[in-house]
């Protein structure tokens, strides 16, 4: 297999807060040029991982490398090469949009005023407006535009489309995809909207309880999962070579969402292809597929 270049590599990464784990033994590699969805319930470690990758928070253990460097507030070249958008999208509400752009230009050597102005023109956001007078959707667009105009190699976006109406959300995601098409930036974004994941992401990382439970290419994920169902109150053991992620029983039968590790041919089970959303949801429900005593990383490696 070709060694793909990676933009983010974590090995046994820990983040310990006073009484809880923000992230526990997180090992993952994110290849370059992808649009990666970071999915998980609130408190599962998404923001923790993004903040550490942006150099805003120090790991408690393990190693983290971003674009081959160890991120910290002092890593200057990473500050230029990485764009981070906080969940709270901090903006100066009394500034005009044009002033925000000049502020961005002064602070970022790699800034492109053309990129910034083109994006805002496409979105019909006047440069003269005061930030505080813009709608929530427009403020999100301005915050993302400031991030994109830096032309970073890696964009770390913490719930960039949260709390936006459907049209604003669609505009924001298109803006982001246009940037990816033009510059080839890698993107890691956290989200709760599984439909966005299916639309724009080609790599998914699922976090649950501070652990990574799934991390792979979306196409690979879809190809290696199936729904097996059977009618009747059968206790029939599922075929060998599969890992059950989620099981649902009804009065009429059983339905299993499984990861298929070996080809099987057991005609007693009906086999269906789940959508990416169904698969991610199954992992979110179960937290971790460690029924057979293995952890997610081992399963991951075993599946390759």
């Amino acid at each position, binding site marked *: 297999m070709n060694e793909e270049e990676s933009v983010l590599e974590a090995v046994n990464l820990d983040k310990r807060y006073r009484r809880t784990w923000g992230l526990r033994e997180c090992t993952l590699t994110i290849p370059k*040029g*992808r*649009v990666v969805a970071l999915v998980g319930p609130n408190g599962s470690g998404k923001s923790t991982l993004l903040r550490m990758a942006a150099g805003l928070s120090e790991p408690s253990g393990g190693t983290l490398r971003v674009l081959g460097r160890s991120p910290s507030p002092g890593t200057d070249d990473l500050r230029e090469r990485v764009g981070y958008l906080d969940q709270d999208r901090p903006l100066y509400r009394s500034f005009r949009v044009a002033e925000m752009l000049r502020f961005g230009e002064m602070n970022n050597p790699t800034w492109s005023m053309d990129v910034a102005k083109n994006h805002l023109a496409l979105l019909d956001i006047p440069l003269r407006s005061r930030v505080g007078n813009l709608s929530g959707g427009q403020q999100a667009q301005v915050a993302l535009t400031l991030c994109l105009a830096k032309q970073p190699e890696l964009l770390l976006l913490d719930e960039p489309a949260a709390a936006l109406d459907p049209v604003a959300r*669609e505009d924001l*995601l*298109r803006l982001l*995809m*246009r940037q*990816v*098409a*033009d510059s080839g930036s890698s993107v890691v974004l956290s989200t709760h909207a599984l*439909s966005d994941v*299916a*639309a*724009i*992401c*080609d790599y998914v990382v699922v976090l649950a309880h501070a652990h990574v439970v799934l991390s792979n290419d*979306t*196409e690979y994920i*879809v190809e290696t999962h199936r729904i097996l169902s059977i009618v009747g109150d059968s206790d029939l053991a599922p075929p060998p070579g599969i890992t059950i992620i989620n099981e649902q029983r009804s009065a009429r039968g059983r339905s299993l969402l499984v990861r298929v590790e070996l080809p099987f041919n057991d*005609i007693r089970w*009906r*086999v*269906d*292809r*789940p*959508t*990416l*959303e169904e698969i991610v949801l199954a992992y979110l429900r179960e937290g971790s597929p460690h029924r057979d005593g293995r952890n997610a990383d081992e399963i991951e490696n075993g599946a390759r």
Partner: protein
Amino acid sequence: MNRHPSLTFRLDHQSGLAPYRQLVDQVRHAVSSGLLQDGDQLPSVRDVVTQITINPNTVHRAYRELEHQGIAEGRAGLGTFITSRSRVAPNVAERTSLEQALRDWVIDARRAGIDEETISELMRTALRQDGDVRS
């Protein structure tokens, strides 16, 4: 040469089909229906990304697959075009379209709740019938 063929992609995220496959299928249908013809240019990746919310990597992936199938070809610096070979060499096109038709049929059959065993049985029956006709 038609620079802007009227091809508008759409994605169905509930279909269970990978997004790149859906694009491939839509181009294939456009070619077989005559909407796209030899030498027509496919929309640029940037145009597609502006048109629908999709990852540009997915569009690249779909265009590579179309090239692999001999339906389109990339011309350096110009874009991706429907290839004239897609008519000249019907074997490849015919074969891939038959494969696709079968895959589509299997998906439809599964949606209709037909299980794998019945699908295999239907296939065996059809093959037997074909043999009967030949002999």
